[in-house]
């Protein structure tokens, strides 16, 4: 790769070259995998929390067996506007990565028996059924730990496996929207409740555009599984990893809980304002939106110089004024009076020019709000192999986000294949782990078990 591209805007060019050599994407497939001694069974159902958890483990080398009901997981149908590529939607093709796909009706007696044999060999089981469902089939943690004491069993559900709400709402399925709703962050995300210019119909809680509840739930699940795995490597002992996705959001809801404990007050919905750091906001510009930040006194002084408004600095001299919810709409609109005259790229140029001045007062940061179409074209992401493109024998041309663990110097994360059709690996997996040949599989298939 061209040295100029490698070094980019690095403060230390030699370091950048060294880091490139250590984490060159071209070398990924020559290197070992961190978790290739782990066997994970993902029997999740209609939940991208389960799918994301097993995706992360699979990127890091774990062998993942996806167990779907004979008709396929309903998650395959979760696709924008219902658009499908053969048996799967866009979301499933994205998170089907590196997994073997088998079918099994765990609700049938024969199916449960087969599942039990398979789980006896596994290091990890991930499931997202209603709490207690697997237990009622005789294949929950209580029953499996008897035959496999080292098993790490990870059920994922919006209400968790136990607790008052799990008992009350355990008959509800696991969904992203309910996880976001229970995760506190939604209560403080959305258009500003205090800005008079926001029409009242938009003053309501807002979810993140992506499946933040499910993805956070999945990431926390794989975090917990790997912590449990580390413990198991030392002690041989498995355990139950009860993952409730809303708790994954509650855990990261900034200081909402702390502030309530300390003051007895709730934080309001701030919109693009921020009551702990401001200006730190999205502003309109000529061709869209840009992020702009200049919070501490020196940085605010710099921002006021950039936009040519020394009077604003005098009007809002300390962080106390700038963090006052009453003042933030005015500060925002004053900054926008400047930024709307320029495109996002022009603003970046203005700020970079200011930042190179020896007499600058502080640091101003701007950053375009990119559209997805812009992101995929950026050279930086292309060079870093942020996306994975392939011509899949079944799904055709596919373009998805790559593993974000690619730059581990010794055991980089990777995608080996994208998705697999429903039941595509039945022959291989049932033969490999249970010695079940075609004759038996055909029989089970006729009975609707596989």
């Amino acid at each position, binding site marked *: 790769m061209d040295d100029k591209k490698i070094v980019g805007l690095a403060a230390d060019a030699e370091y950048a070259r060294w880091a490139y050599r250590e984490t060159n994407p071209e070398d990924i497939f020559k290197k070992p995998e961190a978790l290739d001694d782990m066997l994970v069974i993902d029997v999740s159902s209609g939940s991208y929390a389960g799918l994301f958890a097993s995706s992360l483990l699979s990127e890091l080398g774990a062998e993942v067996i996806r167990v779907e009901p004979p008709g396929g997981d309903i998650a395959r149908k979760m696709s924008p506007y*219902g658009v499908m590529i053969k048996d799967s939607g866009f979301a499933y093709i994205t998170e089907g990565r590196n997994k073997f796909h088998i079918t099994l009706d765990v609700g049938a007696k024969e199916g449960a028996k087969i599942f039990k044999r398979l789980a006896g060999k596994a290091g990890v089981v991930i499931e997202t059924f209603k709490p207690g469902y697997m237990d009622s089939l005789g294949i929950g943690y209580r029953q499996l730990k008897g035959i496999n004491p080292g098993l790490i069993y990870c059920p994922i559900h919006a209400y968790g496996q136990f607790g008052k709400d799990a008992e009350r709402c355990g008959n509800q399925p696991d969904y992203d929207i309910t996880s976001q709703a229970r995760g506190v962050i939604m209560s403080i995300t959305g258009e500003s409740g205090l800005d008079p210019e926001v029409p009242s119909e938009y003053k309501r809680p807002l979810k993140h555009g992506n499946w933040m509840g499910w993805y956070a739930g999945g990431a926390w699940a794989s975090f917990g599984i790997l912590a449990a795995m580390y413990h198991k490597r030392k002690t041989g002992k498995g355990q139950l990893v009860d993952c409730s996705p809303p708790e994954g959001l509650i855990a990261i809801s900034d200081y909402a809980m702390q502030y309530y404990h300390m003051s007895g007050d709730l934080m309001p919905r701030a919109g693009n304002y921020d*009551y702990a750091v401001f200006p730190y906001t999205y502003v309109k510009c000529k061709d869209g939106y840009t992020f702009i930040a200049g919070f501490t006194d020196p940085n605010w002084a710099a921002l006021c110089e950039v936009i040519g408004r020394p009077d604003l600095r005098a009007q809002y001299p300390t962080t106390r004024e700038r963090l006052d919810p009453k003042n933030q709409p005015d500060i925002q609109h004053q900054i926008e009076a400047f930024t709307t005259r320029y495109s996002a790229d022009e603003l970046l140029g203005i700020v970079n020019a200011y930042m190179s001045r020896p007499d600058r007062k502080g640091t101003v940061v701007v*950053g375009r709000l990119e559209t997805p179409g812009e992101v995929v074209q950026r050279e930086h992401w292309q060079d870093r192999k942020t996306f994975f493109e392939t011509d899949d024998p079944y799904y055709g041309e596919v373009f998805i986000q790559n593993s974000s663990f690619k730059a581990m110097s010794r055991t980089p994360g990777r995608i080996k294949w994208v998705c697999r059709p429903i039941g595509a690996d039945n022959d291989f997996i049932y033969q490999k782990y249970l010695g079940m040949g075609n004759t038996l599989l055909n029989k089970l298939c006729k009975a609707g078990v596989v």
Partner: protein
Amino acid sequence: MKQASSYLDFLRQEFDVGRLFDKPEPLKGVRVLEVCYVVLGPAACDYLGEFGAEVIKFEGQKGDQMRFVTPYAFLWKNMSPGLEIENHNKYWVGMHMGHPGAKEIFLDLVKRADVVVDNLTPGRLATWGMSYRELREINPRIIQLHVSGYGSWGPWTGRTSYDGGAQGMGALAHITGFEDRGPIKSGVWIADWVTGLMCAIGILAALNYRERTGEGQFIDYMQVENVIRWLDWTWLFTAKTDENRKRSGNRDLAICPSDLFPCSDGWVGLAAFSVDEFRGLCQAMGKMDLFEKFPDPTVRLKDENARQILQAIEAWTRGKKVEEVEELANRLGFAASRVLSANDVYSSEHFRERGTIQQYDDALYGDMVQQCYPPRLSATPARLKWSCRPLGFDNEYVFNKILGLPQTLVKSLEEEGIIFKWDPGIPSHCPPADWDGVSGKKLA
């Protein structure tokens, strides 16, 4: 689904919060050196710390910026809540990392450490002679994670990245907000928190690998790329349609129905995608004709169908109370939940029973009630031991006890300005005003 009572009894016993401290910690014995500031890097280490890693946090003389990032400039007993949230169970050192005398001390600690995490400008550790290149020479088992917006190499390496900027550059902001309105930033520093989580996962994977092979490694992690990774079907949609994914408020474009609905007394998040779930919902609504028209989930997702279905649900919820909708969901098997605020969770029996919200008596700040990181591990649960600390609060413990330097030498390091403590003139550096000078000190 009604859980068997024996299953619930089993779980209550397995997860009894009263026994938290009687159980082992999964990351006991893992020593982490944190050369981080603001939210992302400290959060990555915090996740490890609540599961038992010993995290030693290094701060410069000005102090972590989060000592100054606090709602309405509010301080509580001289503590900034902005600093509290990503710093628990840690050991606090004030050290001038760029000082020539600091290098030897730091490298001595690296010999006895397992993980080094930094979120400084890429290459900053290298200029101090403390990058992975040097660290692995003295400890081949060391795992070093560097995290920054754009990573350690590539056309954009060196660009500054804040959470709000990362949400924008990774296109999360573009897809968050109402259909006919502008993009909206998350109500929290989401791109910091979730990137920190993925850093912790990378570190755990590396620790697991090291357990097998004895080999450490270097991890270069990118915040903006992490945002990109989390955007589910966005990228395949872009590639296949040549269109940008649109903002759609609370409506889920890939699951129908899944949206936020107004009730007579608040909001309810509701979803029912499978045939059975949707049947249950339509039954609750007394609108079986809607079910008969749209039993097929994929057909429901077509834009005009989705709008029609969501409208019908809204017309129904408007006349209901949130609790009524939740009860119907429990009975008929679809998903529905109110939007919880911090106070709901704070006082919830459910979250206390699960150890999601834990209460502890902090030696400096007294009674604390706050969230403890998930998931809930039955044999090796996470726990809160103490909160954040004043600048340099644990210098003696770290240099005297862990590193074994004689007290006289620690004193002279302080005199040379290599290590230091809080500046009494800066409140958010300091212990509470009424501190007795002893409480909370680990080697008083």
